[in-house]
């Protein structure tokens, strides 16, 4: 039996699965260790993937050979396009998934991956090894000890602990050790990390109750349907592969009304309900029993994921709050109450939900709870997600202070890539803020003090017009192919798409439209309005509220695949804005590309203010650009750093 792996991934949530996949794709012998093999990429909170910024991450993962998009496409019970009218940069997909099916498809996908082993075990200890020959690239650097005392060895390690690290669940007065409700926490590993010297912080998150569909009066809910138009998270090129069929072929449970059985795929709706005065009164009357306010919970929770009791206290004048009732799968009767995350005592959870007309007789299948867990403090990992304390140890997901499946998956991908490259002695891959949301996410993690679980927003991406979901593959697939994450056939399909878009754009730029009576009549009939002066077709398309299909029909322009037409439309309409962002990016290029060695001696840097030195020592920025973004670093500090770097370079030349 082979116990030595190139890469061992500990934890098989959304981060761990992507890390294992990436490492295996890069040719590493990879081991994925998890406490429960039936819960790979388990959706421990809501059954949905995507949304603004999160959906962008998913598209980027797919462009780089990740799994989350494809598993979502196979297991979605509903897919929608959000922010359709709010601009090209913020449009994003969101899917509701069948939770059990998701874990199952993920498991089957990973099981088929060459070079990847899956094992069920709880890791209790990580032993850093001193290689007898440190110059030997093949030497093992870690021994991993499981709860049975079994040992594995690895050259590089990816640790994705989620909420398991010394996890503690809380509902009302009750608190119990748990990684997730019903699962044991990783206590020993948490203690082990602390003993390895990692400073840990305590974070908190929460989840709402799950209710029984048979006890919902759906006639009193508002129905929210999925998209009638096909949308996929994954990039499926018509000349390469067909989109995957839904992994489920049976009939949806009859309990859910208004299911879409026809169309591009069967879909289940979500159902909206609202709280009222009785609901709010009940919560206020029980605030003394809320662990959030009574001091039972110490961890810091995310403000964008507030509990319902928090919302009612902080926004006292708001008369109602909306909840979405989201089926957790095609057949299960379990329904997720989105918007109602809570750690109030069980009796209050029952009573409050029953004040809602559609839920008068509701029964809870699982109660909501809050969970506190350990994360590693900011500054412990660098932009490659490798810990500074232990070379070869990479962290991804909630252990780095983030929240969300997509955020975890994105880090998993990068940690997996960089662990593989570490094992293969290749330089780390670091994506820039202007390349990908993934780059923004990790750059934020290594330059910002995390005070609450970090979630991705479109507003965090200053170059977001460049980072659209419609161009994720154009941005990242060439790089992914170069690294070995996607094959040549797929890379070629991406280039064909790029060429098709460019060709169509050229056609439109060169096609002159003259304001003849006939042309204006046709444009008016298409709802575009008239021309006064000759213009190119691209100029006409740049007008607000003109779509390419409209223009194409009016003027007999060439037809292309929908994604190509949309891409060209965005280029025409927002070209000016896009160029402005590109100029900003170019302006900062030298700063972003100027690397600072991780071993850089800040102590020996004359003239640096002491506060600046402390900040730089704590975060150890990888580039001058990162240094300039750190709180407490001013332009003259950056200048001093630059001079020192220049001096270093010139001296090393001597």
């Amino acid at each position, binding site marked *: 039996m082979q116990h030595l792996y190139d890469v061992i991934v500990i934890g098989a949530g959304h981060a761990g699965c992507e890390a294992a996949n990436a490492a295996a794709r890069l040719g590493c012998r990879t081991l994925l260790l998890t406490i429960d093999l039936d819960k790979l990429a388990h959706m421990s909170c809501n059954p949905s993937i995507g949304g603004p910024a999160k959906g962008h991450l998913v598209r980027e993962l797919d462009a780089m050979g990740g799994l989350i998009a494809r598993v979502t496409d196979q297991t979605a019970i509903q897919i929608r396009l959000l922010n359709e009218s709010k601009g090209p940069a913020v449009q994003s997909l969101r899917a509701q998934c069948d939770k059990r099916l998701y874990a199952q498809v993920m498991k089957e996908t990973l099981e088929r991956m060459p070079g990847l082993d899956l094992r069920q075990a709880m890791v209790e200890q990580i032993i850093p090894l001193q290689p007898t020959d440190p110059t030997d690239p093949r030497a093992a650097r870690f021994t991993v000890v499981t709860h049975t005392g079994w040992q594995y060895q690895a050259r590089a390690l990816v640790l994705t602990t989620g909420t398991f690290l010394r996890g503690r669940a809380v509902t009302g007065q009750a608190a119990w050790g748990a990684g997730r409700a019903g699962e044991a926490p990783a206590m020993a590993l948490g203690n082990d990390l602390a003993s390895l010297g990692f400073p840990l912080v305590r974070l908190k998150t929460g989840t709402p109750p799950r209710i029984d569909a048979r006890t919902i009066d759906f006639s009193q809910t508002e129905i929210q349907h999925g998209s009638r138009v096909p949308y996929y998270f994954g990039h499926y090129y018509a000349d390469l592969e067909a989109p995957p069929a839904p992994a489920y072929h049976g009939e949806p449970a009859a309990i859910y009304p208004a299911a879409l059985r026809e169309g591009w795929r069967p879909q289940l709706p979500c159902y909206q309900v609202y709280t009222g005065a009785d609901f709010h009164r009940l919560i206020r009357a029980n605030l003394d029993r809320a662990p959030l306010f009574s001091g039972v919970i110490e961890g810091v929770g995310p403000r964008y994921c507030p509990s319902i009791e928090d919302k009612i206290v902080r926004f006292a004048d708001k008369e109602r709050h909306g909840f979405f009732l989201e089926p957790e799968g095609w057949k299960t009767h379990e329904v997720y109450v989105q918007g109602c995350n809570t750690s109030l005592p069980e009796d209050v959870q029952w009573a409050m939900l029953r004040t809602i007309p559609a839920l008068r007789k509701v029964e809870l299948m699982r109660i909501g709870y809050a969970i506190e867990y350990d994360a590693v403090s900011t500054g412990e990992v660098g932009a490659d997600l490798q810990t500074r304390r232990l070379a070869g140890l990479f962290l991804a997901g909630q252990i780095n202070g983030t929240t969300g499946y997509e955020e975890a998956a994105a880090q998993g991908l990068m940690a997996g890539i960089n662990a593989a490259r570490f094992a293969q002695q290749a330089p780390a891959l670091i994506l820039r803020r202007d390349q990908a949301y993934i780059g923004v996410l990790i750059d934020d993690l290594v330059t910002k003090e995390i005070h609450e679980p970090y979630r991705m927003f*479109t*507003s965090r991406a200053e170059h977001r017009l460049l980072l659209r979901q419609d161009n994720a593959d154009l941005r990242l697939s060439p790089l992914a192919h170069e690294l070995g994450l996607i094959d040549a056939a797929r890379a070629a399909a991406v280039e064909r798409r790029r060429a098709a878009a460019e060709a169509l754009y050229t056609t439109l730029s060169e096609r002159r439209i003259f304001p003849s009576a006939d042309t204006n009549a046709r444009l008016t009939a298409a709802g575009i309005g008239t021309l006064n002066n000759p213009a190119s077709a691209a100029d006409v398309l740049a007008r607000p509220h003109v779509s390419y299909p409209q223009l194409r029909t009016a003027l007999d322009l060439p037809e292309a695949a929908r994604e190509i037409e949309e891409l060209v439309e965005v280029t025409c309409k927002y070209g000016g804005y896009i160029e402005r962002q590109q100029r900003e990016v170019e302006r900062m290029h030298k700063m972003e590309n100027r690397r600072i060695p991780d071993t850089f001696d800040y102590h020996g840097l004359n*003239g640096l203010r002491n506060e600046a030195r402390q900040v730089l020592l704590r975060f150890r920025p990888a580039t001058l650009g990162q240094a300039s973004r750190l709180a407490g670093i001013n332009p*003259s500090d950056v*200048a001093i750093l630059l001079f020192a770097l220049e001096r270093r370079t010139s001296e090393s030349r001597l």
Partner: protein
Amino acid sequence: MEQDTIVAIATPPGEGGLGVVRMSGPEAIAFASRLFRPVRPGPLRSYRLRYGHVVDPTSGLVIDEVLVAVMRAPQSFTREDVVEFSCHGGPLPVQQTLQGCLDAGARLARPGEFTLRAFLNGRIDLSQAEATLDVIRAQTDAGLALAQAQLGGWLAREVRAVRAVLLDLLAYVTVIVDFPEDEVEPQDIGPRLRTSLQTVTSLLQGASQGLVYRHGARVAIVGQPNVGKSSLLNALLRSDRAIVTPVPGTTRDTLEETANLNGIPVVLIDTAGIHASNDLVERLGIERSRAALAQADLALLVVDASRPVEDEDLLIARLTADKPTLLVWNKLDQQDPAAPSLVSIAAHLAHPRLAATVATSVATGEGLETLVQSLVQVLLGGHAPLAAGEARLVSNPRHHDALHRAHEYLAAALAGWDANDPTDLLGGDLLAALNALGEITGESVGDDLLDLIFSQFCIGK
């Protein structure tokens, strides 16, 4: 470390005949060609001085007569393409030339940035650069101290108030984009956007006024002998009893006196002391007028109302053609009733940059107050002067630059809002405006946006 083109005033601020505006970067020559009109046509060559005019590219009006030096990369201080404008006409044309370069697309240089580029491009060595670094540091610290001092100042207060409103708007825009499924009350942000734009507009106006109040202006009084130039000078000096400072003229043939006109230090340049002569050129003091005009921001062209306009008046008027000019129709008390009206005289002179016409009688004092008001208004770019105690001057070019950019982005945001553009683009413009204003108050948009969002909107699953 960046590849854009930067510009700054290279000479120390203050009085002085000459001011140098330096521009460096890949587009320096292209930008310079947009505002420089050489007297003799031809391309700008490296290490050749060229004589010509700086003109406002949009209006085509002449700002100043200048000498332009071009140093092509790598034979320049920064090893980039460098263009230097040597301006003659005092602080205002220097500022306007700087503004012209900014309008053409250059960015205002940060302290020490030319030196930094010189170092990065290998033009100077580390020890030279480090010496400059001390200066950068001192300036940054001074800048910080200044910012501290302004914490209680009116500008920071105004800018902060505008930022607070814009941050609210950005928070709203961000919420509807990042939380599309949460219930957020729709807001009409148009009115608040419009008000913010107005505030920035008036700050910007104060900014250009501030430069005038701080640096003052130079005004040449020209006209035929005996039209009342000297008495006009004395009258203007008398109109303000606070400051009358006679100083010798910068050329032998001119006399300079400084008057305080409504708070603006105005240097009046008189072509006094012209002796009677039979030579027309000498009698009219053509050379002296030229000398006086060359140093002036503005001309007072004095014409005698007691007699018809003469060819000599037209000759002198032509000298002032490239300066903003006030036509002063003097000796109103002796006006010939048969003489043509002021309007037709102005038309007859056909002055391309005639800014105002005023009829005066220095002898009776009639029209003098109007003249002062017109003069001040022209110097302030057509805006009403500040009321007493309303010391709202933005005199720092950096602040001016930041306000200018904020103004552009806000105008774009408002246009986008009115045109019903996608929300996301609006967010981009708001963010850019906030960051520009933040350069004045030293604040950037970061987590405070999220703080605001979570305190104002009830969102999240």
